[in-house]
C-alpha cells in the first residue's frame, strides 16, 4: 500500500495540519517508509486473538456523578492566546 499526494493532503486535512503543495511528495515518501516498516505485521496470524484493551486486568472504577469543581473561568482561560471576560475567542464561525 502506497500513499499518493492526494491521500497525504486528505490526511493532513483530517489532522488539521496545513501542508504546502511542495511538501506533499517528501511527506508521502516518509509516511510510506513508516507504513512499509509496519507492514511486517501482515505476517502475524491473529486468528481468534482479542485486541488488547488493558495490559493489567483491572475493573474501571465508578464514581458518583456529581459536580466537584467549577467556577474557575479565569483560571481555565488564563493560558489562552486570546480570551475575553472568561471566554475563549475564535475567528467568526457564523456568517
Amino acid at each position: 500500500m502506497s500513499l499518493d499526494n492526494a491521500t497525504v493532503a486528505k490526511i493532513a486535512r483530517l489532522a488539521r495540519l496545513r501542508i504546502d503543495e511542495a511538501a506533499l511528495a517528501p511527506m508521502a515518501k516518509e509516511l510510506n517508509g513508516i507504513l512499509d516498516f509496519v507492514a511486517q505485521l501482515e505476517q502475524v496470524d491473529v486468528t481468534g486473538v482479542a485486541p488488547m484493551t488493558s495490559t493489567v486486568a483491572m475493573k474501571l472504577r465508578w464514581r458518583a456523578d456529581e459536580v466537584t469543581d467549577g467556577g474557575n473561568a479565569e483560571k481555565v482561560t488564563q493560558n489562552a492566546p486570546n480570551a475575553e471576560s472568561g471566554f475563549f475567542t475564535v475567528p467568526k464561525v457564523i456568517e
Partner: protein
Amino acid sequence: MDGFTIAGARDRLTKGDLSARELTQTAIKAMEAARPLNAMITETADKALDMADAADARRKSGEAGLLNGIPLAIKDLFCTEGVLTTAASHILDGFHPPYESTVTANLWKAGAVMLGKANLDEFAMGSSNETSFYGPVKSPWRRRDDNAGLVPGGSSGGSAAAVASGFALGATGTDTGGSIRQPAGFTGIVGIKPTYGRCSRWGIVAFASSLDQAGPMTRTVRDAAIMLRAMAGFDAKDSTSVEAPVPDYEAALGQSLKGLRIGIPKEYRVDNMPAEIETLWQQGIAWLRDAGAEIVDITLPHTKYALPTYYIVAPAEASSNLARYDGVRFGLRVPGKDLTDTYERTRAEGFGAEVRRRIMVGTYVLSAGYYDAYYLKAQKVRTLILRDFEEAFGKVDAILTPTAPSTAFAVGAKTNDPVEMYLNDVFTVPVNLAGLPGMSVPAGLGSDGLPLGLQLIGKAFDESTLFRVGEAIERAANFTARPEKWWEAAR
C-alpha cells in the same frame, strides 16, 4: 556534587552536617556551569532555594519526608503549577499550568527540591533529544579521544544529562517506548519504568496514554528505589492508576538472589549488533549466576513485531491526544482566515517535523477503512506480545537483556531516516506494550569509552525484584566511570 547520591545526601542531611540550602546552592552552581549541555529548558534557582529553606525548616520540626532537601530535575512534560511547562514544543509557548501533576506533587510532599525543568524530545517523541524546539541536549559523555558531540538518548535526554553530569541527584523521566531506559543506558545511570498504573499520569502531558509511565532516573539502584517510592501511588484522578500499596523498595536491596530464576530471551539480538553488547550481556548472565540466580533460556517469539506494533499504536494515540492543541485554549496561535485555517496554521507551525509525521501516521491508521487493517491488527499483536511475557513469567522471576543495540551516537547521525531512529528502542518497546516494569542499570563501557546498560524486565507490580537483581548487577559491575567535565571549560 560528584560524591553525592540521594541516599548519601539523605544521611548527611539527617545527621545535620549538611543543610538543604547548602546542597541546593551547590547544585545550582553546577547546573549553571553545565549550561553548554542544554539539559534544562527552565532553571528555577529561586524556587529551589525557597524549597530548600522550607525543607530545612521541616527538618528542624521533625517533619522531614523521604526526599527532604534533595535537589531534582523535572522533565518538562510534568505540569508544574505556575512554572513554564513546554513539552519542548513551540505549540505550548508560554503555558503556565494552574495545577501540579500528581507525581511532582508527591515529590514535593516528600520534601524534594525542584532545580528546574529538563529538556526532552518534543512531546517525548524521539530517541536522541534532537526533536526539542529548544535545541538538542548534548551528552556529558564523549568518545575516547574524540570531541564530537553525542546524543544523551531520548526522550528524557535532559533528565539523563542532568543526573549524569552531576548537578541533579535524580530526575523524573517518562517512558512510552524506552524514553527512561535508553537515555539511562546511554549516559551510565539507572532508570526504571514502573508497571503501567504505578505512577499517576495526571498532569503529565499525554503522548500515548496506554503506554506512558513516569519513573525515576538516578545514579544508583538504591536512589531509584527511594525516589520511585515517593513518586508512586494510587490517584483517583487517573482512571488507569492502580489501587495497590507501594512497597518500601529499599527493603528489597541486599537480599540474596538464591532461588531466583532469570530468563534470557534468545530473540533480543539484532542484525549488526556490536559484539561487545553480546559480550556484556553474557557478562551480566555470569554475574547473576555467581550471585546465586538460576539462568533459564526463554523465548519471546513475537519480539520482532513489537516495534511495528508500537509505531501504529503510539502515533494513533498521539494523534488523538494532540488534537487538543488548537490555538484556542493555550499556547501558540497563528491567525488564519477562518477557524479551520487558524487550526491548520497553528498546528503546522507549532509542531515540529517528527510530531507532525506521527500525527499524520496516527490519523491515517485510525481513518475510516484503515482502522481494522492497522490499529485493530496492532492491538491483537499486542495481546500476543503480552502473552509471550506471561508464558515466560510462568518459568522465571525476571528477564535480562541489553538496554539498547548500540552505545550513544553522534548528534545528527540518525536524523534523516525516522525508521533507523526507531530501531534504537527495539529492546525497550516490548515492555511498554505489555505494561511491565523495566529497569536499565549501567554495566560497563564500550570500546569507544561510552556507557552500556543492561535491562531487567519484571512481572507486573514486581518492581522490588528488579531493584534486588539490579543492585546485584550494579555491585558486580562496579561501574564508577564518570564523564570528564569538558562543559566547564566550554563556558
